[in-house]
């Protein structure tokens, strides 16, 4: 199958103009604060787990995959950050990395029809549980820190991103745990398809907190281990191929989702992947790289088995396991796509090839995205160095 010639499909210009393409991305992850750090970390297969600071108090697990050096005030300045939740801060730092260069100059154009859609699990559990603790334990039940209230709204991070960058287009938050990154991507695809936005900032985010850790720990199903948790935010710029202002890194050929209604995640993943491949118009044999969510659950194992049965064996070894980032919950599916892009960036043979990402969530959602990896150097005005933050 390997050819020294570039496949025509690797050329962004060969795509139908309405094809959704990824033209930039950023990641704030356990590998570091930037897309560059993420890409380097993924390619090296670096371990990210650390012993958390004692300030977290007692935790159910000795290690966690935290974003290193994530000092909110240092990164975002003193104004408006004193009471900011970590989820919002992760998202804002990722949005800066997406839209700006290292000097803070805007490198992605936006306008009144630039949308934002962010996938989450349940927002900042630290914020909401602290709010409720105050309500239960203070002298009066409304003795709660009013300044923290706005950050407890599930749509705050996406709204704050809009405020920070002046984005007045459709602004949406979707919830779906590990599948939320794919739900967000599909949301952006749909709304752009209906002409509601010309460009989207799309991604997903999860924060680590003691509250999140204990809830995840107690939610574990019998037989599953207590999860090694991760956190972070991954964002993309997506545009239509015909109007893209920046070189396309990948085309989104299909995003399919499904619900496992029979407690049989393997069958649900299989059905979802088959449908996604069919919609993308590619065969399972064509899949060059596949990245499952690697959730530390029976569903995660079933997901892996389903992909193993469906896809070429080497596709599942192209990208190091997402386990290295910990269970990043809502951030996971976005990080999975970014991991493929990171590996592809270092492999010229990847251009034109098919990548597939799957996700399974505790609540029963299952998702699959099929992408065609593109060679951004083939695009007009290509600036591969500017493509990742």
């Amino acid at each position, binding site marked *: 199958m390997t050819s020294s010639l570039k496949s025509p499909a690797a050329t962004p210009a060969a795509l139908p103009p309405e094809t959704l393409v990824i033209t930039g991305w950023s990641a704030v992850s356990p590998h570091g604060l930037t897309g560059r750090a993420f890409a380097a970390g993924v390619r090296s297969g670096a371990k990210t787990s650390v012993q958390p600071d004692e300030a977290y108090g007692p935790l159910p697990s000795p290690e966690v995959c935290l974003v290193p050096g994530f000092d909110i005030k240092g990164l975002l300045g003193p104004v408006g950050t004193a009471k900011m939740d970590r989820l919002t801060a992760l998202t804002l730092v990722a949005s800066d990395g997406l839209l700006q260069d290292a000097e803070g100059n805007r490198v992605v154009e936006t306008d009144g029809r630039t949308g934002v859609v962010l996938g989450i699990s349940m927002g900042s559990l630290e914020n909401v549980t602290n709010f*409720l603790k105050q309500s239960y334990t203070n002298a009066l039940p409304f003795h709660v820190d009013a300044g923290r209230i706005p950050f*407890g709204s599930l749509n705050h991070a996406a709204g704050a991103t*809009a405020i920070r960058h002046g984005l007045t287009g*459709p602004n949406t938050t*979707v919830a*779906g*745990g590990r599948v939320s990154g794919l739900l967000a991507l599909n949301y952006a695809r749909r709304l752009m398809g209906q002409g509601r936005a010309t460009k989207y900032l799309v991604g997903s985010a999860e924060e680590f907190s003691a509250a999140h850790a204990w809830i995840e*720990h107690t*939610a574990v199903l019998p037989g599953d281990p207590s999860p090694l948790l991760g956190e972070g935010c991954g964002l993309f710029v997506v545009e239509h191929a015909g109007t893209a202002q920046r070189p396309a890194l990948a085309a989104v050929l299909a995003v399919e989702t499904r*619900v496992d209604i029979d407690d049989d995640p393997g069958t649900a993943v299989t059905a979802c992947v088959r449908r996604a491949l069919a919609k993308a118009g590619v065969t399972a044999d064509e899949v060059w790289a596949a990245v499952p969510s690697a959730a530390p659950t029976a569903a995660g194992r079933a997901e892996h088995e389903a992909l193993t049965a469906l896809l070429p064996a080497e596709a599942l070894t192209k990208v190091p396991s997402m386990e290295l980032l910990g269970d990043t919950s809502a951030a996971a599916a976005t990080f999975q796509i970014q991991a493929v892009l990171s590996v592809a960036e270092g492999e010229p043979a990847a251009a034109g090839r098919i990548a597939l990402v799957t996700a399974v969530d505790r609540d029963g959602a299952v998702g699959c995205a099929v992408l065609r990896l593109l060679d951004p150097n083939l695009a007009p005005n290509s600036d591969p160095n500017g493509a990742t933050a």
Partner: protein
Amino acid sequence: MSTAQSPAAPRSGTPDGRRRVVLTGLGAISSIGTGVEEYTEGLRAGRSGARPITRFDTEGFGQNIACEVPDFEPERWIHRVPLDDMGRAGQFAVAAARMAVDDAGLTEADLGERQAVISVGTTDGESHDIGVLVEQEIAAGDPGALDPVLSRRINAGRLSTVIARELRMPNVEPTTITTACAAGNYSIGYGLDAIRSGEVDIALCGGADAVCRKAFALFKRFGALTPDVVRPFDRNRQGILTGEGAGILVLESLESALSRGAHIYAEVLGYGLSCDAAHATAPNRDGIARGIRLALDDAGVERDEIDFISAHGTGTKANDKTESAAILDVYGDSPPRTVAVKSMLGHSMGAASALGAIACSLAIENQFIPPTINHVETDPDCPLDVVPNEAIDAEVRIVENNSSAFAGNNAILILGTYGERV
């Protein structure tokens, strides 16, 4: 069922070839009535859902009124999924979805493998359960002393997936939308786009929320909780009452609805989304006005075609003044009648605009305009005909349903008569 109406006049601006989307089933759980019949009666009668809170301890708050759903019987509607698999918001969502598909005359065999969107909007999801978990931790002095049953069901994504499980619909996109108090309209809009795109023929959309301490303490802290009743657009309004419930609507492509001879309540003509990008919690006149204009454009509807506006109308000083100004910005000196169903329902958060959309559908179906109750004196800052206190019979063809939320999220929905009604 209402009498046959003349076909709707062609509306300008509707792109040729765009798929039409209609509402064929409604499921409502509210503090003023459950099911289409009771909910319609409640709206017509101007019933108030305000009652003493039973869901959490209100000691120390100095007030204890909310618009709870009384006597909710989840087992009437939820047959398959164990009730413990979801919190009260999830039970509302599933029950309303069951009601909506029953109302639409869709059997499980009809749904089955059909590709569909299930999109539930919510503000707080199962935050009541999160409150219980926090209580458990405090009581035990141990952060690990949490009930696993609750820990597993708190994520908002479950509100949509649990409907798929109950209705045995595996082939669905389960997109829970958490755009706070505008989430219901967002979800209906998403269903509209999914059907317009041609990718699905059916979508179950709406919103659900349950009364919880979080919302009550939050609005109390903001000084936005009325001590007695909700008086939207009134000079002496004092704030909201928190509320709860669910509204789920069956959205269907017109061809699918016609092919199975379904009853059509209304047509989903369009919607608009705008983001203020200005303030984390304050409503924004320009953002709301822009959302209204986007919705009218999407629907291909002229301003003078709107028969009434179902306002966001929370009853806070800030919202009602700002929303009124935005409405006047768009409509000029003679705006349509503008009513606030939150005067009856309280603020049911993520369910609010879904219940508002159902109210609009029922107004079209039954040719009446629901009232704004508790109204004494219209605020000069809100110079609107709010249809005070008594519903009126009226010719209702096209209706606008407003919603706004923290984080500057505005979603405006336009519904209209499906003219070729059989």
